[in-house]
């Protein structure tokens, strides 16, 4: 690759990786098994520009690669009222990714679209902070927090520099998090991650006291740890694969610090991200994208009922998961109640909408936290899943 036998773009790409490795004091470039690449949204400057400047024809990724959330739903952009120029740009991006040989997943939860391709100990290069934390922590694969640009270039050369979370010593737990709270909902895990991230910053936390979290809850935890703490890896004793025991999680060392999380801490996030009560017009879930189990849960809560007139319920998921849910009748149950399931995109990345969503209730701390900067004129409520569904029927946040 370095000598240009794979073409000038790949030569440029590998040279960038070598220089990046030198800068990060990596001893070598590692082969990767998989990559997940962003550069798919139209509302962050420098993504589309890089993609269209950098990529040339006839270049393909070297390893199985998935891609991140778009700014549109490819099937239902019309009903979302997205402007034509954003739609055109989004489809241009879709085309470039297809040409690159990247799987058209368009999701922030790529781990639900690749079966068991990525396994414990695999070196990969992943974009999307919540996916990075999930891959590192829940699967035990090894990735740094890649930017869209470094992620794409890694996919093109099938290599990443060996530094950071690729090295065992950097995966050692550092801070013990003793959870003394009863967590009963995805949103509680979202809240837990929000508080821990804020308190400890970019460290490796080790949780004790979690009671059998399901996959959706671990996904929610990954999401908010990355949000407020820039945390790329956590361990949970007897739950995540590098933490069979407390001793394993700390690689035989002692915790550098200890933090106790109480029920009050969990409740604090709800108070911090929501003030007061009032009218609700939009209910949003799917940050990160909902998995099949979560869609099933929503179907159970909505089946046979009607959401309140004038209230919108938007659920976001990956197209791949949508298709499976559709064949199981889950999508129909949800949509018969008046809710909508959107694919490929999310509330925060939707771009070019003629009418912005208003008075939004969500069960993900990230939506409420970032919502203010992405959609400045609206009001956000953050609450448990049961509470946002209740608001769908009443149109009120009490």
């Amino acid at each position, binding site marked *: 690759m370095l000598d240009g036998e794979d073409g000038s773009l790949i030569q440029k790409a590998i040279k960038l990786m070598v220089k*990046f490795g030198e800068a990060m004091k990596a001893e070598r470039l590692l082969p990767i098994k998989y990559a997940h690449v962003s550069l798919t949204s139209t509302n962050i400057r420098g993504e589309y520009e890089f993609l269209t400047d950098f990529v040339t024809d006839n270049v393909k990724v070297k390893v199985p690669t998935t891609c991140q959330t778009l700014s549109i739903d490819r099937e239902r952009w019309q009903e979302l009222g997205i402007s034509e120029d954003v739609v055109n740009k989004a489809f241009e991006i879709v085309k470039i990714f297809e040409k690159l040989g990247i799987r058209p997943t368009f999701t922030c939860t790529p781990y639900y679209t690749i079966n068991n391709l990525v396994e414990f100990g695999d070196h990969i290069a992943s974009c999307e902070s919540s996916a990075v934390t999930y891959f590192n922590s829940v699967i035990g694969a090894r990735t740094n927090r890649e930017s869209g*640009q470094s992620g794409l270039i890694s996919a093109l050369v099938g290599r990443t520099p060996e530094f*950071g979370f690729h090295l065992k010593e950097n995966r050692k737990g550092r801070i013990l998090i003793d959870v003394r709270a009863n967590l009963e909902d995805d949103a509680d895990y979202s809240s837990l991650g929000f508080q821990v991230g804020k308190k400890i910053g970019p460290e490796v936390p080790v949780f004790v006291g979690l009671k059998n979290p399901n996959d959706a809850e671990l996904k929610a935890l990954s999401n908010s740890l990355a949000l407020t703490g820039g945390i790329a890896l956590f361990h949970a004793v007897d739950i995540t694969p590098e933490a069979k025991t407390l001793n394993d999680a700390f690689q035989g060392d002692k915790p550098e610090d200890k933090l106790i999380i109480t029920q009050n801490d969990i409740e604090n996030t709800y108070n911090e991200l929501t003030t007061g009560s009032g009218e609700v017009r939009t209910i949003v879930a799917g940050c990160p994208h909902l998995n099949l189990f979560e869609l099933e849960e929503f179907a159970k809560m909505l089946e046979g009922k009607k959401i309140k007139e004038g209230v919108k319920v938007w659920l976001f998921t990956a197209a791949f998961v949508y298709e499976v849910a559709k064949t199981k009748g889950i999508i129909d149950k949800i949509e018969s109640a008046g809710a909508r399931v959107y694919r490929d995109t999310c509330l925060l990345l939707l771009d070019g909408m003629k009418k912005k969503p208003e008075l939004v209730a969500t069960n993900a701390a990230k939506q409420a936290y970032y919502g203010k900067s992405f959609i400045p004129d609206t009001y956000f409520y953050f609450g448990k899943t049961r509470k946002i569904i209740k608001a769908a029927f009443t149109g009120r946040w009490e």
Partner: protein
Amino acid sequence: MEGKSYRIIKGRGVFPGIVEAEALVTTESISLLGGVNQETSEVIELNHPLSGEYISGKVLMVYSGRGSVGSTSTLYYLKKIGKNPAALVMVIPDPPVVFGAILTEIPTIVDVSIDDLKTIKNHSRVKINGETGEIFVYDV
């Protein structure tokens, strides 16, 4: 600045190039996506020591990068519209910032000691050599 006296601070050069410009200095980290306006290069993060400053054309000297990996995108876009920082200096190399600097060919020095960084006043005149890792500070 021939003839003017200077002192030298050492770091590790990670992208070559010699640049002399005004420095923006803080011992805090900077969030290039979210904390900086991508069109104007103004630092917009509330309560940030560099809030209200424009990083365009300056030697940006910070503790590290913080927050989103979108820092690479901001550097790429700023370079494209000609409003990129002239050079970067960090105590701790933040991967997305370092990658962005290499991609956009901005001279960059890392591993500068925090104690050395503290001695440089904001708006000082500096010259950096991204090859040797030397920072010439014209304040003596």
